[in-house]
């Protein structure tokens, strides 16, 4: 019954434009370690930009959303079979590392590169 999904693909209505605006995408966000209450032992950097993913996952998951087949099937199930199965979620896809300089409990000073600290792109899955 793919044609029941097709209309959403062919004629983008005004509603379509709106939903396009709040589609799953990366949003920049910066926080200071003081706001996190960690400025007592994090020496550098002073601020941290983790970013975040937000937005709805469209019915037809276009290529740029790096969605696996599973997400496409889940989207169809939600639409055609069982609405209690949720639409795929908008979550980070790729991350960047971040280097931190901190003071340890025993007074030594540590430079450390932490993986998975900054969201770089989003996906629906």
């Amino acid at each position, binding site marked *: 019954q793919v044609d029941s999904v097709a209309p959403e693909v062919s004629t983008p209505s005004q509603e379509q434009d709106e939903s396009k605006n709040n589609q799953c995408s990366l949003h920049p966000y910066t926080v200071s370690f003081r706001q996190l209450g960690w400025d007592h032992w994090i020496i550098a950097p002073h601020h941290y930009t983790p970013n975040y993913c937000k937005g709805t996952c469209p019915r037809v998951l276009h290529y740029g959303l790096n969605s696996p087949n599973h997400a496409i099937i889940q989207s169809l199930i939600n639409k055609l079979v069982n609405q209690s199965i949720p639409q795929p979620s908008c979550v980070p896809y790729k991350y960047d590392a971040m280097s*931190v300089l901190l003071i*340890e*409990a025993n*007074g030594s*000073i540590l430079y450390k*590169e932490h993986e998975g600290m*900054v969201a770089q792109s989003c996906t629906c899955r």
Partner: protein
Amino acid sequence: EVGQPAITFLPESPTLPPAETPTMPFVEKLLEEAPGKEQRKPYLQGLPLQYMLELYQRSADSDGHPRENRTIGATMVRLLMPSANVARPLRGSWHTRLLNFLLERNRVAYQLVRATMVYRHQLHLARFSLSCHVELWVPKSPNNHSSGRGSSQLSLMSQTWTEMDITQHIRQKLWNHKGRRVLRLRFMCQQQNNSEVLEFHQHDTLSMDIAFLLLHLNDTHKTAWKAELLPSGLEEFMGGESSLLSRKAR
């Protein structure tokens, strides 16, 4: 203030706000490395901090993104100050201090990439100048007469600092050692061109940041989660909801 060697104590650090989300490795690791609420720790200032800030600026940009052309060759660099710094009796124009560095037990097996001693080879006090070097303190035994200089390579880092590579020594003698791991060194300074002998006192400059140990390490565990106990600080600040935290929600 940087450059004035001094040790000050931080006021009580506030408790951490409860984290809304289950702990991430970063928070877990941060709290493992960071002080607990009750713990007061010496807050380092002066040259060691300046050294690490310069290392940080060379290795990451102002947002903390690691630079492509960084040269540290490891994902971690730990600077340790001596846990003990004891003056030895004056011998002629030689001033000697014994420095102990405590290598804490790592709960996660870090791979040692490089270990260097960084120390001040020139000290100027009032009208005296001293030329200094560091030797590995090797317990006396009948068969080995080698001085502690061993095969360590020296490299002049600046007018003030010299770097001595002691990777081999640490790897062979300490790294996989089961018990307490203490690196012992002799910091020796000879007075230059002055007949009058300079009397040092216990609290003098030589007990300040004259030498520190740099360990270049790599994390060996690949998975983000480590099957290790929650650090006590984490459990305490999460109000003991360890079931939430220990759940491997991945």
